[in-house]
């Protein structure tokens, strides 16, 4: 959902976007992942062998994806869930205690929007405004309260990086 919101936000910013989920044999709590490409030019391949940024929500994902990041890129870690850190020195690391922040907001399921808020603030891949707009669009059918909670989470992550 995090990647999907980001892709929609990129689209609303007038960029070319692709969103490619990993499908098939992924399990909850495992290394389910997706790839989002946002570009001014046409996107040749939605597959990224060396992405600029990676967001990891759990420990298995950190071990799987830490080494694919481009040198000089960025890694966002959900520090509530991941207690180890990569040994690479050529990337910038951003720690976000997403589960703790979500608990403060009173809903443990908001971690992904918190991470996304932190992500857009640091990377500028999409503005907060269009990301909020994307949340509005995507969660609208689930009700006003869901939209509100997700926007709050987005803002909390955004502010945490401030």
């Amino acid at each position, binding site marked *: 959902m995090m990647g*999907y919101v980001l*892709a929609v936000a990129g*689209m609303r910013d007038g960029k070319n*976007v*692709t*969103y*490619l*989920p990993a*499908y*098939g*044999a992924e399990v909850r709590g495992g290394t389910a992942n997706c790839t989002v490409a946002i570009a001014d*030019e*046409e*996107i*040749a*391949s*939605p*597959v990224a*062998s060396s992405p600029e940024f990676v967001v990891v929500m759990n420990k298995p994902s950190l071990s799987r994806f830490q080494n694919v990041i481009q040198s000089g890129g960025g890694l966002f870690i959900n520090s509530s869930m991941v207690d180890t850190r990569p040994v690479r020195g050529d990337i910038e690391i951003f720690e976000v205690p997403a589960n703790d922040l979500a608990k403060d907001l009173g809903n443990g399921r908001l971690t992904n929007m918190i991470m996304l808020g932190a992500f857009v603030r640091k990377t500028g891949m999409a503005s907060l405004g269009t990301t909020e707009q994307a949340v509005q669009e995507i969660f609208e059918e689930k009700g006003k309260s869901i939209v509100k909670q997700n926007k709050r989470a987005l803002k909390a992550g955004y502010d945490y990086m401030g």
Partner: protein
Amino acid sequence: MRGNHVIGEAAIRAGCHFYAGYPITPQNELTEYMAARLSEVKDGVFIQAESELAAINMVMGASMAGTRAMTSSSGPGISLKQESISFLSAMELPAVIVNISRGGPGLGNIAPSQSDYFQATRGGGHGDYRNIVLAPNSVQELADLTMRAFDLADKYRTPVLILGDGMLGQMMEPVEFLDPKKPGKPVSKEWTLTGANGRPSRIIRSLLLDPTVEEEHNWKLVRKYERIIHKETLVEDFLLGDSTMAVIAFGTAARITKGAILRAREQNIKVGMIRPITLWPFPSKAIQEISKIIKHFLVFELNTGQMIDDVRLSLEGRGEVHFYGRPGGIIPTPLEVSRVIASQYYQKRLG
């Protein structure tokens, strides 16, 4: 929207009223979309069949009744459908069949691959027939070509295959749907089985025991195929103007190639691309024309070399053909392909 959903939505907008399918990754979202969406369409029918065999035969029945009908699957399931694709061709019944293909042979894997090129373009089933095969390379084209598939199927009374892959089916991109010229309006069909009410009874069959009758039927199909070759071949060319080398690729591979060519051009490598959009009919004429100017071709496929046969047949020796391919569901990056382009380009001293 997600590619698989886009195919479903485009089908509905093209007037598809009947879908039968069986779950297989990576096309399940299409089946699920049709289940939800056809329930909103008046007289829409969705059936989760007991097998891919049953699914395509249900489509055959609906097609006999004059309904726009579709089924979808992936490699292994498409293999099961081949018997009936042969029957559909023989009985001249329209149908749209979607293959969101995966790595093979056998169960293979669920990663994107182009290993079903032969199966799609050579008919796949028994007997002397051809299918129209459309090869989209973006989510937008999934929409456009799906709508076109229904029109072609009705126009020529023939099954039309859409050959995508797991990447196209799973990825999300922005999409705009064309307004179909006649949304949902059935074309005039003088051959459907609707009951012999106020007209003589009709037969739809493929059994032609008399060899002279079967031969005439075969030639009739050939004349139809020649009309299709003449009128419906689609090809895109990309930056060929000043090129001394052309990459030939379709679908996902073509998309990667575009990125590779743009990289190569940053190094002043004069390379362009020919992208067959219809795999059958194959754009042989276009390739022959281009071969008057460009003599070096690199075929890039996500398999071990299938379309390259058609390229060679098209060129009839008028050009040098090289191949780069990755099978098994590996997706090379534009960088990797640009390096292959560069090495060919400099080895052949085309710069």
